[in-house]
């Protein structure tokens, strides 16, 4: 199966929506910290879930440049 930024973004959004506190109207352009009101720990916990879904490790230092869901998907694709 080849994953694209779009398909990975979709998986991220689906995973986020499993959390009832996350706004229902998120898109790939949603900002993870500002729009989702995630603190640093929440971001790290959520990235861990995505890592396991996609069987990839995202080193924490890669997250410094990630602001939107699309950015995260892009980082994941580059690691795969």
């Amino acid at each position: 199966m080849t994953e694209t930024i779009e398909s990975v973004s979709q998986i991220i959004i689906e995973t986020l929506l499993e959390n009832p506190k996350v706004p229902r109207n998120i898109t790939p352009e949603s900002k993870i910290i500002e729009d989702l009101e995630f603190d640093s720990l929440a971001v790290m916990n959520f990235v861990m879930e995505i890592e396991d879904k996609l069987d990839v490790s995202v080193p924490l230092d890669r997250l410094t440049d990630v602001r939107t869901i699309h950015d995260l998907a892009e980082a994941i694709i580059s690691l795969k």
Partner: protein
Amino acid sequence: MDIFTKFQPLHNAFEQLMSISKHNPFGTTIEKMISPTIGVINGRQTLLFGTNNYLGLSQSDAARHAAAEAAMQYGVGTTGSRIANGTYSLHQELEQDLAKFFNRRSCMVFSTGYQATLGMVSTLAGKDDYLFLDADCHASIYDGSRMSQAQIIRFRHNDADDLRKRLRRLGDIPGNKLIVVEGVYSMFGDIIPLKEFVEVKKEENACLMIDEAHSFGIFGEHGRGIAERDQVEADIDFTVGTFSKSLGTVGGYCVSDHPQMDLLRLCTRPYMFTASLPPEVIAATKANLEIIKNHPELIHKLMDNASRFYHALQNAGFLTGPDISSVISVILEDLPQASQFWNRVLELGAYINLSLPPATPDNRPLLRASIAAAHTTEQIDQLVQIYIQAAQDVGVALKI
């Protein structure tokens, strides 16, 4: 927009806390120390269950005398770094004492435990290396990882299988791998299944560093920590720890058998670019290490106290962490409940710690008690009664 604008969310969170909390849980002032377990807070004698003075040694006579004598002989500060004018024979003696205590080839003493972990993690893991950190590791370890140039991978708390999976995911990417764990985790007081981690470390050919901050002086026949208790010391590459808990002073250390440890004295920035510990602190720490060596009964008294407290809380229906250690935490529902409980406990005469997310795992507020060998059985029982009373007064549901 000024330079403080970014702190507005913090300001709001703190204001909200202070609107429901009579006392500032982060601003408690101890006005006087009566004994290792009793202090004066808000003008009242209060039982101290929120210190890390696990063996009561912050007040040991031997350490006080040693400190006074060292201050008279050497003065009260070194005014310099370990690699300049800040190494006295006392520093070297303490390093030798600690290396001997751990049966290790060498020891480096740092000015705080924070700097010991910060320095070791940031220096050992270089640009092409991988750091594997337990999800619940202390802030000093995460800060060290950010200072390092390494790739940082976080694994699920106390889950050796999850670590194995993440190590294997890397495949045969070049670069050294350093796993960092703790003996006892400081929030829940839960203990690492260290043997399982040692297996993974061996399978995957990684280095293993353990921070025994909350287990040194408490676990193992001689007090060397969880690695001693689980008989895996030979498989630990680096042990770090602090003087600020069982040893009752301030400072930190790393012990290791690695033949080139001394090289780290020349490249570990939190070791090099700060003044060394003052003579009186080194002398007091040496004296307290002797006490730990010669009084294993302190360890037993502490564990008896911890076990008495833990079982009493469970019998009363509190939700506790999974293990019995020097830290025993009760998990509460939400911030208002936790802050009311903490205030009530203080009013009833005991000081404990209120720990709030994001410093706590799982986003739950914790009431954290540290149990000491110096607590009497009566004081432990008194604290249990205070918890039960406070739970009634603020409406914490107990499951009976």
